[in-house]
């Protein structure tokens, strides 16, 4: 009996690991390709591992395809992602607090509006929003990519609301008696307790903004403002067959996302599901 269970266990782990390797094969392939000579990347006889490890792809890719290097593009991506993430966290927490804890007139209406906005795909608004930003003379700047993040992001508002609803109301009441008002309850009670939800928001919104392609594609036309995702696409378009450097820069572009995931993995897994299932 025990032997049978041990065998089952081994089969299980072998299967899960093999299947998991298949899942991350595309990522491995990209990273390994970034260390290969051009002749070994594609074709019927391409080896899985590089026969000689080539490191030049990285400095070659870093130089970029025009006069700018990837240092510029990474700097741009970091600016947009960090400012955007900061805005998402602050504004979404505020709105979530209002909708979850403050009994104001019209709360139901705004909650419904928030859910509708969450379900409305962004692509539907792509053209009219572009027209508005264009009218304001802000196309070609970071503003259309960053400013909206300071106005609440429904997905995260909803997630934080679910979290706030789970906090005992007695905390608010106790704080009231101790002399807190609705503002200090937010800064002293709700915000500190929102910790895990805030970490989830930071990680997810950072990688959504970092990976975003449509926004930069619409609003950034000058290469000096390109984010990494736009720059890699440009690199692929202009140096179509120069795969080694292209994969080198692709691999580099994923590092910030991986690092965040590595540090906050535990919170992320709990945070994503907390909102969905209770709702």
């Amino acid at each position: 009996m025990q032997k049978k269970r041990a065998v089952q266990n081994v089969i299980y782990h072998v299967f899960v690991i093999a299947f998991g390797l298949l899942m991350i094969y595309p990522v491995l392939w990209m990273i390994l390709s970034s260390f290969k000579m051009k002749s070994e990347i594609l074709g019927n006889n391409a080896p899985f591992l590089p026969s000689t490890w080539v490191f030049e792809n990285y400095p070659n890719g870093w130089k970029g395809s025009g006069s700018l290097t990837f240092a510029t593009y990474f700097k741009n991506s970091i600016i947009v992602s960090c400012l955007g993430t900061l805005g998402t966290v602050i504004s979404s927490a505020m709105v979530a607090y209002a909708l979850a804890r403050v009994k104001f007139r019209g709360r139901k209406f705004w909650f419904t509006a928030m859910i509708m906005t969450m379900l409305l795909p962004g692509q539907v608004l792509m053209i009219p929003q572009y027209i508005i930003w264009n009218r304001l003379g802000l196309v070609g700047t970071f503003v259309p990519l960053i400013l909206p993040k300071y106005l609440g992001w429904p997905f995260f508002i909803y997630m934080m609301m679910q979290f706030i609803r789970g906090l005992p109301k007695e905390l608010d009441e106790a704080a009231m008696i101790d002399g807190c008002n609705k503002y200090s309850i937010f800064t002293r009670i709700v915000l500190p307790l929102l910790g895990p939800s805030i970490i989830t928001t930071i990680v997810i919104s950072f990688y959504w903004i970092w990976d975003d392609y449509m926004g930069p594609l619409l609003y950034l036309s000058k290469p000096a403002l390109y984010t990494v995702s736009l720059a890699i696409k440009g690199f692929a378009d202009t140096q179509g067959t120069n795969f080694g450097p292209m994969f080198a820069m692709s691999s580099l572009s994923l590092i910030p996302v991986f690092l965040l995931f590595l540090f906050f993995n535990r919170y992320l897994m709990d945070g994503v599901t907390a909102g969905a299932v209770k709702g």
Partner: protein
Amino acid sequence: MQAAKQTRKGSFLHNDNVVGYIFAAPFIISFLCLTLIPMALSLYYSFCNYKIGAAPEWIGIQNFANLLKDGTFTNSLLVTIQYVAIGVPLKLVFALFVAMLLTRPTRVQGLYRAIYYIPSLIGGSVAVALVWKQLFGSRGPVVSLIKALGATGFNFFGSTTWAFLPLVLCNAWQFGSSMLIFASGLKQISKEYYEAAEIDGAGAVKRFFSITLPILSPIILFNLIMQLISGFMTFTQAQIITDGGPNYATNYIALNIFKEGFSFQHMGYACAQSWVMLLIMAAVTGIIFKTSSHWTFYEN
């Protein structure tokens, strides 16, 4: 005494209505300026001939009438529906399968979940789209494998029949968030149900269909709606991997709207397409919600 003074002084600012609107202000501003006004503008432009820089010219329902005759548009609707009809169920089945695979409590469960979540973390990026393009390209490893199995001359992106498959797989590959949601749903199913069923002699398949699926049905509904919406509006992958080709076989609606609006500068016409798409999506979601009472099951 001091407290009483403070409340009086700040009584306006401490009124729940005022507090609520102050905290909700960011969303209210964005709802008005970035959702409501753009939607109204879009509706207006969809009845206009409009190009950036020129004044919109009212042409009534001309845009919508043209849509019906526009082969590129009707084709993009059809291929989008094909993409959603194949891709979304595949992704959900996959997500549920992996979620069930990883319910087994082991010391490395967290590590496994993290590995299976990686594709979702990076799947939407340009980097992955570029990798996919080469991975499934005519000289990439997947085609090499297929050729080694005997199908010489096979090429995904040269075939109008098969070009959609790498895109569907790229979408299904990002099953992570659905998987996590399924996993937490599975965790909440009481073990007693399974034990009772086992005593009654129900096999694993029977237990899956009579216990797991019904209890998970509200979560399936949630995942289904979320994936449908994002599936209907797929953009980045299609733009980078196939750019709609070959011969419009993967010219999904969001891509078509983008090209119509920004490449051809037919902004009014593109707005009309957005509205038709939105109505179709609303109808599909509505039908699913309406019928969901027949197939979702709530424990209490």
